[in-house]
């Protein structure tokens, strides 16, 4: 499980850095996030095994993500901001899946969706939760990956 957590961390960091040019900062330097609203996207997948990956970001990150990906000076539209977040989730999910059972397994990813909250039904013993928290000057991104428990 620790290996998966580390893989998720490395892939998430790489995606935010290479795709959105956001560099993480130490957690203790993070802006206070308790009172900040968040936006959540998720990508579910099936195939060799099933699961879902959620990314929750504090809202001030949204325009920065889209601006950086699009190389736009103007503030991107709300639709573009949500689209950027969805694409980040898509890239992280697609890249992290080979960590589960090797690169030769086939998974089908659904289109990323914006959701109000994390589906509580995943918070059961049937699912493994691998999570990570990344802090940036612009806000906080939390990644929650629920995957089927590996077969013994």
């Amino acid at each position, binding site marked *: 499980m620790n290996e998966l957590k580390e893989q998720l961390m490395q892939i998430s960091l790489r995606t935010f850095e290479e795709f959105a040019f956001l560099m993480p900062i130490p957690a203790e330097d993070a802006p206070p996030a308790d009172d900040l609203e968040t936006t959540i996207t998720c990508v579910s997948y099936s195939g060799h095994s099933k699961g879902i990956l959620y990314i929750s970001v504090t809202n001030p990150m949204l325009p920065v993500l889209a601006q950086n990906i699009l190389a736009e000076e103007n503030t991107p539209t709300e639709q573009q901001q949500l*689209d950027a977040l*969805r694409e980040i989730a898509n890239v992280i999910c*697609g890249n992290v*899946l080979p960590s589960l059972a090797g690169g*030769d397994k086939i998974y*089908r990813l659904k289109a990323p969706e914006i959701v109000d909250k994390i589906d509580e039904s995943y918070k059961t013993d049937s699912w493994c939760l691998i999570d990570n928290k990344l802090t940036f000057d612009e806000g906080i991104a939390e990644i929650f990956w629920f995957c089927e428990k590996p077969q013994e």
Partner: protein
Amino acid sequence: MSLNVLIVDDSFVMRSMVKRVLNICDLQIQNIFEAGNGKEGLEIIENNWVDLVLADINMPVMSGDEMIDKIRENPDMANMAIIVISSESSTRTIEILQQKGALFIHKPFTPENLQAAVFELLGDTNE
């Protein structure tokens, strides 16, 4: 040789990013067409001269995979240069796409990755 390029991706942000990367690559581009899924992509190919298709795989309505099959089935477009740009990581899926004559670029990618793939498929378009 100036290229007519078609970008097929359901994400507006991704299409914009690919377009931006194309424009900073050392490529001569005449037109860039955009489609939100494979079906729209095929319609554009049927009505326009397209030299190169850059396509995602997972899309609603028609996937990139299905679009490539239809392109290869049609004698008028069977030899079209296709590069798949996707976060797909399954080696089997990538092999299947390569067997269909498509090059594969993994997301996230750099301008150099894209330029190298275009040169591999079409040669140096500046020559």
